[in-house]
């Protein structure tokens, strides 16, 4: 373990974890979810985090996004040190630097698709950039559905609204938690294609947790976790190489 304190520097990393430990409970019931994890997620790239159930992949993402506090170590989003931020600081971070896409879509049923997409900006009191909004809408292909309520949309359409919502505020990094977990494969592939396009065309940084090798194959890089440790990583993955790697990790 290095003793030099991590100096805040402008790096290429959109988010990074340094020597992060996450321990739940204490004594007999203690569960170590993350053991000394250090990882850098490069700016403008699409990173997938994979691993079997209980490997700590979701915990890692939650810690990186500031949704969960780490037990030890430090987490940065851009040049903001997330560790130790107050609730107000975390709120600011979420408004300015982070976007989320969830497995359950999590749209507000009382708002239309358009209002859902613009919600983060409205909450932050920022004016939407109309041209960018239009670009995002075109990318996810929702033009004719903007006035609909979530209950009037299919699962795939709802998730596209959620993607647009994450993209519209141009966050430093978008965290996607099993974004295709609740979708059929066609709708899932559509979503992954949008995510991929937003990385290539707009330089958006995306971190995605998934257990689906096909989904991971859309990423630039896959990080594998097992028992709370990073065991390996893979650049430019395909579904086959990811599967091989998973087998190796499991073995």
């Amino acid at each position: 373990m290095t003793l030099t304190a991590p100096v805040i520097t402008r790096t290429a990393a959109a988010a990074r974890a340094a020597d992060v430990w996450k321990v739940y409970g204490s004594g007999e019931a203690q569960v170590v979810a993350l053991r000394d994890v250090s990882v850098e997620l490069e700016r403008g790239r699409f990173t997938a985090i994979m691993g079997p159930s209980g490997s700590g992949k979701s915990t890692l993402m939650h810690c990186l996004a500031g949704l969960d506090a780490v037990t030890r170590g430090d987490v940065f989003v851009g040049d903001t040190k997330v560790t130790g931020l107050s609730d107000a600081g975390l709120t600011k971070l979420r408004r300015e630097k982070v976007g989320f896409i969830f497995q359950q879509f999590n749209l507000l049923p009382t708002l239309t698709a358009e209002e859902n997409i613009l919600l983060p900006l409205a909450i932050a009191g920022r004016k939407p950039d109309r041209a960018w909004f239009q670009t995002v809408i075109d990318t996810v292909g929702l033009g004719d559905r903007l006035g609909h309520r979530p209950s009037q949309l299919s699962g795939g359409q709802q998730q596209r609204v959620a993607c647009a919502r994450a993209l519209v505020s141009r966050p430093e990094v978008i965290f996607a938690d099993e974004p295709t977990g609740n979708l059929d494969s066609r709708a899932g592939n559509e979503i992954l294609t949008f995510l991929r396009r937003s990385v290539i065309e707009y330089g958006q940084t995306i971190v995605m947790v998934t257990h689906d090798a096909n989904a991971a194959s859309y990423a630039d890089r896959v990080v594998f976790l097992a028992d709370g440790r990073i065991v390996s990583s893979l650049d430019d993955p395909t579904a086959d190489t990811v599967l091989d790697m998973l087998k190796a990790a499991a073995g």
Partner: protein
Amino acid sequence: MIKASLRGLLQRKLRLALAVIAIVLSVGFLSGSIVLGDTLNARFAGLFSTINENVAVQVTAKDPDAAEPARLSQADLDRLSRVDGVAQASGDVSAEGVIPFRTDTGKAVTAQVGLAAGVDSRGDTLGLVELREGAWPARADEVVLSANTAKLAKAQRGTQLKVFVPQLGEARTYTVSGIAGFAGGRDSLAGETLVMFELKHAQELFYGTTGVYASASFGAASGVSQDELKKRIERELPSGFKAQTGKEATEEASNALGDSFGIFTIILSAFAGVAAFVGIFLIYNTFNIIVAQRSRELALLRAMGASWGQVIRAVLLEALVVGGFGATLGLGFGIAVGVGAEALLSNMLGVDLPSGGVVVSMWAVLWSYVVGLIVTMIAAFIPAVKASMVPPIAAMRETVRPDKSLLGLSITGGAFLVPGAGLVALALTGIGSATTLVLAGGVVLVFLGVALLSPLLAKPVVRLLGWLLGRGQAGKLGVRNALRNPRRTAVTAAALMIGVTLITTAATVAQSFKSSIEDIVGQNTGVDIMILGPNTGPPNGEIGFNPAALDEVKKLPGVTDTAAWHITIEAAIAGTPAFISAADVPTAKRMWQMQEVGGQLRTLGAQEMVVDDNMAEASRWKAGDQVTVGIGQTSKKYTIVGIYKRTPTLQGPILGLPAVDDFAGKLAYQGFVSLDDGADVAGTVAKVEDIMSDYPGVTVGDMSSFARQQSQAFDVLVNAITILLGVALLIALLGIINTLLLSIVERTRELGLVRAVGLSRGGVVRMVGVESVLISVFGCLLGVTLGVGLGAAFVKALIDLDFMSKFALPWANLAVYVGAALVFGVVAALWPARRAAKLNVLEAIAYE
């Protein structure tokens, strides 16, 4: 099935907590009222048994209220005293309304009851009153005071004391010859004053002749039972008298008093009923939301073979348990409230009663459970039916419940509202005999109707309010939340509506009265100063002032006219209880500018009367008709010689001054004074006050001070109603908290999401706060609108009856109510908003 349902109950105990509190509050209010009534009753029963402790037999007139009640002569008393087995005998010479004046300020002593008695040199042979110092009164100008009286009047042995005697119609000065106390070292029986005169003097004062007694009490020799002595005495009884054992007399006295507490208990119970009614809304919402949240679980039970009947029974069983639990706690709470209120009330009224335990009657227990269980079962019935209609398939899939149309609900609402409004109108026009019941039924139907219609109103009204209040994104989300389930918002708001409606109705009627009074004062009727009798009891001729005092008033500079007004409520016209006046009609006509509608408004002789046109019309009387008028125990035929135009100040039958002979006393209850233009009103008022200072409780004022006094009385009334509705309002507040808390549980994931996309904790608080304020302001607006409507209906009826002259809106009150609703909303949001803001974002999103 039952086990599953009860286990479910325990798991949701937090969600049911507020429903239980609502039951506890309304049942507590009800049982508290009953316990209070019963306990006060028991205290007074205790008081009477103290008074009658040594009394074995009491002999009283069969008809003590007769115009010429039977009296016991000295010979009667002596004969009864010699009956075998009588150990002590005591003739009773007593009166009420005898009021001493304070020696320091010269003002009348204000006690609840002013008793007087006559005693001879032996004092009280039955041992209730004991001389503490000095001597029993031996001369007509001597009195003995109870220790409490001496304390209140700041009098000692030897002091010169002014005492008002209603039979004399004036105050006289006496010398205090001694101070007495009651057995057991008490200074008074219940905070009253007691002045004891020399026996013969008292007999002359109270009965007009010496040697007579109103009643007598006898102590028994040892070994002679009360019943045995009663039998023996009955053989010697003079006609017109009856004998009772001490025990019977005690029961009769405390029962009579119990009836007056009965009314008090009924009024409190009515307000408790309102609280329980409001509680229904809260409990309904709770069960409805719980059933909605459990629809998956219920569907699973159905899929596993539970019949819909079993599901209904399971939900109703939950309600039964919740209701029973709430009623039990409520009963306990009510007992505590009753005890506290009794202590407070006794203290406030200065009634110093002998202490005793709290009384919890069967009724208190029975009513607690009946109300607790019925309220909960009614409230849970629709949710239970709804639960039974969850299809088994709902267990397998995500249920999407589309917004149901509000049409059916609104039609049902109309079906309640229209007949409800009809009943109110019917009751107010006075058709039918059970008017109060018709009115209450009508109002309840109107409430239900508006409550059912309110979801329809919720959308436009909340949207409008939201546009005014829901600023910022957090606010907008709050508005959306308030709108998303109009039924829930409306039911929650309707609970608040009920209390606000009743308060607004009262305030509207009161305001109309106030401005009607101002109108009358504004009109120049010719009356400049009013003299009003004491409000210590109902006017019957025994309280008020001697009309001769007006002769002195008439001599004051600037005074042009005076009129004495005798009033009694112990009267009946053609068999119907009535409020009767006696006055000099020509003077009244001059001063009040009475308008002749029929016959003649002239000086009335014996058995002549005038009535107002309204009354004449209703009873189809015309000048020359004969009507039976009962005053006290007398009943005579009166001839209607004139009919006058009714005004809000002057109405009802007016008899001639000769009729005053039949009143219980010859005191006037009101007096009117006219002044020259430019006379010194304030100066004259002071002089009249000086003349009237000998008459306890009589107040003097010019017309504007009279109006002010009346206005204040109405304000006090509205405030009292508001306070009594406090429990209903509190339950409505709990209802808002309840709905918000349950909604927050339902929307946990959404809360997590808005936090994840950057809403601050403060934003969440604002969001919940706006929803809360919208609900409460919506409920308040519904209530204010409905209350003004009901108030207008009442005022219209009262104007038709000439009780008031105009309708007026209580603008200031309405503004206060809306302002209070804003605060109410904020207060209701405090706890739910805190809970919402404290949600862990990660857990909220992961929430399933």
